[in-house]
């Protein structure tokens, strides 16, 4: 079950929550997070947009991490989905990365998950069309292409 797969991540001390999203920005499952669905979708779009920017230049992103003083976000990105974990301690970072790698492998072996992914296929740059951009960002996107 997908829920059990994500449970491994939330059982790590100092991990606040985790969620799973497709490359279209659709949320499949979320655990331990206080965001509403709209906020989570917008967060996914912004995370995926970074992967999309790099993909435009022919570079495939596999991992994204964001660090603040007491918080960090770790994302594992594949061709069709991503897993995002939130934590408030860098001491669990190594364990979290390993667990996320295992989570990604388990998801890829899960039939129910693969069926869901197939209905959400999109190339890595798809999300650029889904985000709202300022005028300045539109100009930067034009330069990127």
């Amino acid at each position, binding site marked *: 079950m997908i829920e059990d797969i994500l449970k491994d991540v939330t059982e790590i001390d100092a991990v606040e929550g985790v969620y799973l999203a497709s490359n279209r920005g659709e949320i499949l499952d979320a655990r331990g997070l206080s965001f509403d669905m709209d906020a989570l979708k917008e967060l996914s779009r912004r995370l995926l947009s970074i992967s999309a920017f790099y993909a435009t230049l022919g570079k495939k992103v*596999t991992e994204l991490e964001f660090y603040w003083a007491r918080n960090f976000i770790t994302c594992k990105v594949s061709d069709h989905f991503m897993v995002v974990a939130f934590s408030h301690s860098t001491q669990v970072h190594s364990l979290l990365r390993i667990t996320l790698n295992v989570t990604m492998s388990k998801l890829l072996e899960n039939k129910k998950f693969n069926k869901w992914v197939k209905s959400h296929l999109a190339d890595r740059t798809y999300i650029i069309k889904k985000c709202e951009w300022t005028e300045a960002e539109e100009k930067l996107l034009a330069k990127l292409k």
Partner: protein
Amino acid sequence: MERNTAKLTIEHSGKFGFVYFENGQVVHAEYDPDIGEKAVFRLLTLYAGKFKVESGIRAPVRTIHTNWNNLLLDGLHQLDSMDDNPERRYDHLFERLFTVKGVKTALIFDKEGAIIANSSGKSQSEDALHALVLNAADKIGMLLKREGPDYISISAASQKYIYAKYNQYFVLLEMDQKIKLDVVLPLIKQALA
């Protein structure tokens, strides 16, 4: 210095420079697009690189007639005056960053992605990418009711790209993908302080 005849090869960020010695004196140097004394002065400005010495190799041509001691003194004098050059302002920062294991190149840019300084000297065409990444990171921070992150790490195309705040600018480090972020981040923070 020991009256040797040799060729010294210096490699920095994929670019090669050559210094030829005959009987202990520098007789020729090349560092594209310069040759002769100008090439020597430019090679003296490098703060990181790999070296190889090959004994017995003669210069293809003699372009330097100045005594090595005088050449070195001239070069060091030029280095000192370069510290006032705005283009060299960040050399010391780059020097510190390159002491962190795994750092391959370093770039300083502003919020709009415009390059302020570049350790490799190569022209950069990815300024739009960096500005877009920072904008996206700021929006992620806003969604989480925080400022933009202090550090961003992106693994892509067998490299690791670390974005860090540096005063009113940002630093981008291209690093070996295998580096352990938990180990290098404190070192990067120290180098940027």
